[in-house]
């Protein structure tokens, strides 16, 4: 949308082609000047260390001698044929497939709710936001206590007459439990971005719709949600990236278990790189993760763009 307007703006200018070219050169220079601090920071703080990480992914380090030698693609072929890595991929993909849409939907719902004019709504909104700021180690402390077999959650289940659940100690529930924990920490954070988008929808649209006699649901589906597409797209993408890089709760609570059921890819990378000392394979896994993320984000961009058209 914006690109079109911008083109329109440039094209509309009646100017000689020479002047225009000079102007476009100057515009490009201005753009570069505005972008350069950010680009320099990104290159120095992210790309340069990433390159050294990638070059490690083509090397094999001997555990016995510490000797490091160029080993071509063997780290990659090892990973792609390793059944352990296959299950890491499956666990990671399924986890994200469930988690991210859930977070986007719930945080949008909370945003819609707390963007209403209600008594003390600022306080409720701030309370929902709070978990985003809880230090990681404390998140784990809270939830390992709440989810332990005789903990808070089971006590609540008992009150409503349900049997106690094993949660983090069971292969079938551990990933789900970690998902709940992540959702709790993420909801308020992403809610803020959706609210920012909501605030951007002109009241006049709603007033016009109200004059037409459109009910709440009509307005939600014909005005609010379509105009929320951009912030929701951002939330979905940023949230996907964040969830793929999820690591601390796994390390603190389950170490990938029971039986590999929570062995998400970032934990596997950490495990191989720092604990097993298999640096080459760990870095190859980072590269695969990056490629995977790039593909997923590109698909998300594409889907959201097509829907808009």
């Amino acid at each position: 949308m914006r690109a079109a307007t911008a083109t329109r703006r440039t094209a509309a200018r009646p100017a000689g082609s020479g002047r225009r070219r000079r102007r476009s050169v100057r515009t490009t220079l201005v753009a570069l000047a505005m972008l350069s601090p950010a680009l320099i920071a990104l290159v120095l703080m992210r790309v340069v260390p990433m390159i050294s990480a990638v070059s490690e992914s083509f090397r094999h380090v001997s555990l016995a001698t510490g000797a490091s030698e160029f080993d071509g693609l063997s780290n990659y072929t090892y990973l792609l044929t390793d059944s352990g890595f296959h299950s890491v991929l499956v666990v990671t993909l399924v986890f994200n497939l469930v988690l991210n849409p859930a977070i986007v939907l719930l945080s949008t719902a909370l945003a819609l709710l707390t963007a209403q004019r209600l008594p003390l709504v600022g306080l409720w909104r701030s309370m929902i936001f709070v978990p985003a700021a809880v230090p990681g180690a404390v998140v784990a402390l809270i939830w390992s206590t709440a989810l332990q077999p005789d903990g808070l959650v089971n006590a609540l289940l008992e009150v409503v007459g349900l049997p106690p659940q094993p949660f983090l100690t069971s292969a079938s529930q551990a990933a789900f439990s970690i998902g709940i924990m992540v959702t709790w920490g993420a909801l308020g954070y992403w809610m803020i971005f959706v609210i920012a988008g909501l605030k951007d929808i002109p009241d006049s649209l709603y007033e016009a719709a109200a004059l037409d006699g459109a009910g709440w649901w009509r307005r939600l589906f014909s005005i609010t949600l379509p105009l929320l597409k951009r912030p929701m797209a951002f939330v979905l993408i940023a949230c996907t990236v964040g969830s793929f890089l999820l690591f601390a709760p796994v390390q603190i609570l389950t170490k990938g278990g029971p039986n590999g059921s929570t062995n998400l890819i970032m934990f596997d990378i950490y495990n191989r790189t720092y604990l097993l000392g298999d640096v080459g394979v760990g870095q190859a896994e980072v590269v695969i993760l990056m490629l995977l993320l790039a593909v997923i984000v590109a698909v998300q961009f594409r889907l959201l763009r097509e829907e808009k058209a």
Partner: protein
Amino acid sequence: MRRSRGGTVVLTAAAILAALAVFLPVWWVFVSSTRPGNSYVENMTPLSWLAFVPVGGDLTNYSGLLSGPFLTGLFNSFLVAGLTIALGLAIAVPAAYALATIDFPGRGVVFTFIVVVAMIPFDAIAIPLSSLFQDWHLSDSYAGLVLPALANGFAIFVLRQFFLGIPAELLEAAEVDGLGRIATLWRIVLPLSKPALIGAGMMLFLSQWQAYLWPLLIGTSPERQLAPIALANLSTLFTVDLGQIFAGSFVLTIIPMVLLLFFQKQYTESLSTTGLKG
């Protein structure tokens, strides 16, 4: 928009319920922080109502906490997070504005680059980066703490998304008035962009507020220690005193909440309520 009184009651009840459900674990942290030492476990197995009601508690954990290195850590965390917000926005805003409003060759490539780089997992590159910082003589300095957080691709992303929504007519009008690009950005666009600035600022703030691995890697001396490290050091001082850890966590948690409450007003203003749009 008008709403029936019944609707307001239902929605308020829903908001309160959601807020309480999400806030309950944090409240538990607070109540536990009023129990000296590890005595909070008294109320945990079996679970007692005292785990959620601070009856009989006291604030000794807080006085113990605030007389130790945690206070220095809190000061440093504020300093580092403040610098990160100011410098981070100073870097991200012009970049995002250029991406959103200037049509230059290679714009798509630059944008894609920024998004891709934002996906690089920082934990995975922290070690090579820390040796680079050693070579650049940046270890154990405030600059070393702040710099990596300035490269925040998502802050650029979120600002760009917002700038894209600013009506072109507004910018054209400014140009007609003879305002330069920078002046337009500073005088017209930024005052409209408070929600986005707060959103991006919050990303920058939280990335530093919870910083843990990086400050450890570049070796901060005690006078430059950040609050989460001071908190973690409490727990390596054996887990004997979980009460103080709860207290420190509650302090670290409640500060962003207070900040958000404080910014509510600016935050809830927007293009539509300022009357410039629609």
